[in-house]
């Protein structure tokens, strides 16, 4: 049978169905029944299937990102650490590294417990990097730590999404699948940001979070710099008959410093006679807000676990020192990826605002502590 004859046969039969009113009625009834059946019984299954398909494609993307970030880590460690063994198995197992927070059943003393655990974590990271990259220069260790952290973050996201995906598939529970699907856009945004952060950390570029450190660095440029605590520096100089003490993490490695200890030490050094503390940090913007917008407020402008915040609040309260906070707004992606031009420009604006606060809210002879908070990677 030729193709043309077959087509004619099909078309003629279809036409016969449509031309015959009984057949047409039956056809319409069949369609109605199929539609009613789909609506009544398959609707939810179909929806669940579509959600699962979407989650599966995001999961594949996450897997690619997690494995690529791991490759970047291995490549960088081989490049700068020059180990005489294959570091891949060690890196692979370290990707599952975790921290167990102290119990809050009895909250008394929890901050110190948390601090202790974070210190142990930090030491563990450093010793791991030294172990897998024995020839790495000391100033490059923080960058590798940051790189390792982004890879761990991506790996965690991947494992979390995979867990809910498999759980949803196994139980066919719409609630699990729906929760996963609804959260996926945000999870994927974070994952892409983490992946881009991997690139920033592997080449030591300044990241958005470092804008506070950049402002401090701009203020202390050309001045004598001393180390105050581990990985933290300060500079002391005169400005319009006031004594300014600028604190930041020691760059240009990916350090965040021990800002709380540094502030405590400075305040104790001057017997509590500090007139004002001004803190500058990057902060998450709300959607619709402009990146690089500088906002002013009061309080301790520092993120993280809250351990440092607690200590700074304690010492400021003890000596009744006013706390000014300057924040530079940006999205999470911008905070952990290479600095944008808007943020660089915002640093100049923030510096002017700091000097304005000093001019208007302090008097001659005052001691003012200015703290640039954030990761100082790529900033001296």
């Amino acid at each position, binding site marked *: 049978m030729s193709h043309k004859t077959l087509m004619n046969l099909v*078309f003629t039969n*279809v*036409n016969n169905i*449509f*031309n015959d009113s009984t057949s047409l009625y039956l056809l319409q009834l069949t369609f109605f029944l199929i539609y009613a059946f789909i609506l009544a019984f398959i609707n939810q299954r179909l929806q669940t299937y579509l959600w699962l398909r979407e989650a599966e*494609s995001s999961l*594949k*993307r996450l897997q690619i990102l997690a494995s690529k970030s791991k490759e970047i880590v291995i490549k960088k460690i081989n490049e700068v650490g020059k180990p005489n063994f294959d570091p891949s198995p060690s890196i692979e197992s370290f990707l599952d590294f975790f921290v167990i927070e102290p119990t809050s059943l009895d909250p008394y003393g929890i901050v110190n417990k948390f601090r202790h655990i974070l210190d142990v974590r930090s030491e563990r990271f450093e010793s791991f990097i030294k172990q897998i990259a024995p020839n790495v220069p000391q100033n490059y260790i923080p960058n590798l730590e940051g790189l390792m952290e982004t890879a761990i973050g991506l790996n965690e996201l991947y494992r979390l999404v995979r867990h809910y995906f498999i759980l949803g598939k196994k139980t066919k529970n719409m609630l699990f699948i729906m929760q996963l699907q609804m959260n996926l856009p945000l999870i994927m945004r974070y994952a*892409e940001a983490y*992946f*881009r952060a991997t690139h920033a950390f592997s*080449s*030591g*570029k*300044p990241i958005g979070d470092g804008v506070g450190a*950049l402002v401090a*660095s701009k203020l202390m*440029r050309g001045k004598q710099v001393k180390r105050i605590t581990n990985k933290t520096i300060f500079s002391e100089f005169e400005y319009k008959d006031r004594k300014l003490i600028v604190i930041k993490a020691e*760059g*240009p490695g990916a350090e965040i410093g021990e800002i709380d200890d540094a502030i405590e030490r400075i305040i104790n050094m001057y017997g509590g006679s500090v007139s004002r503390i001004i803190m500058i940090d990057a902060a998450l913007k709300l959607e619709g807000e402009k990146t690089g917008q500088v906002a002013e407020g009061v309080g301790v402008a520092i993120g993280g676990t809250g351990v440092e915040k607690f200590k700074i609040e304690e010492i400021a309260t003890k000596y009744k020192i006013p706390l000014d906070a300057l924040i530079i707004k940006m999205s999470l992606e911008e905070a952990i*990826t*290479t*600095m*944008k*031009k808007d*943020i*660089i420009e915002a640093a100049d604006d923030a510096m002017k605002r700091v000097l304005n606060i000093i001019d208007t809210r302090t008097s001659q002879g005052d001691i003012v502590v200015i703290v640039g908070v954030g990761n100082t990677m*790529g*900033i*001296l």
Partner: protein
Amino acid sequence: MVKLSKNNVLLLLSILFSILSIIFLFMAVINVQSTYDLVNLYSIDFLVAGVLCMILSMLFSYRHRRLLSLKILKQSQTVTRIKCDNDNCNYKEERFFQEGDYIFKEVGKCPKCNGNLYIDAIYDLELKAKK
């Protein structure tokens, strides 16, 4: 012979089915206009074929976009801005970031006033998404 990627195959299929859909729908309209009867001859067949092709075209287009969105990562280029530390000299240059660059690193002498050149800023310039 040119080897097509999965992405391009999906795009071609999407275009092909949209063309077919337009042709079928056009033929259905012509048929109705010429006979003034909706169920006469092949008008229903053309309509069904047209709608089917449209659905297939949309499906392939969706798959293509999905695949593309997985491949696209915003491309960016990091720039290092160098300035002269002499306030009276306005010398400024920009170049691509090199590993080892950091803000306030001294990078040589100014060709204009022989002052010290330093890295004033390092930032990302976002380029158009690459397909």
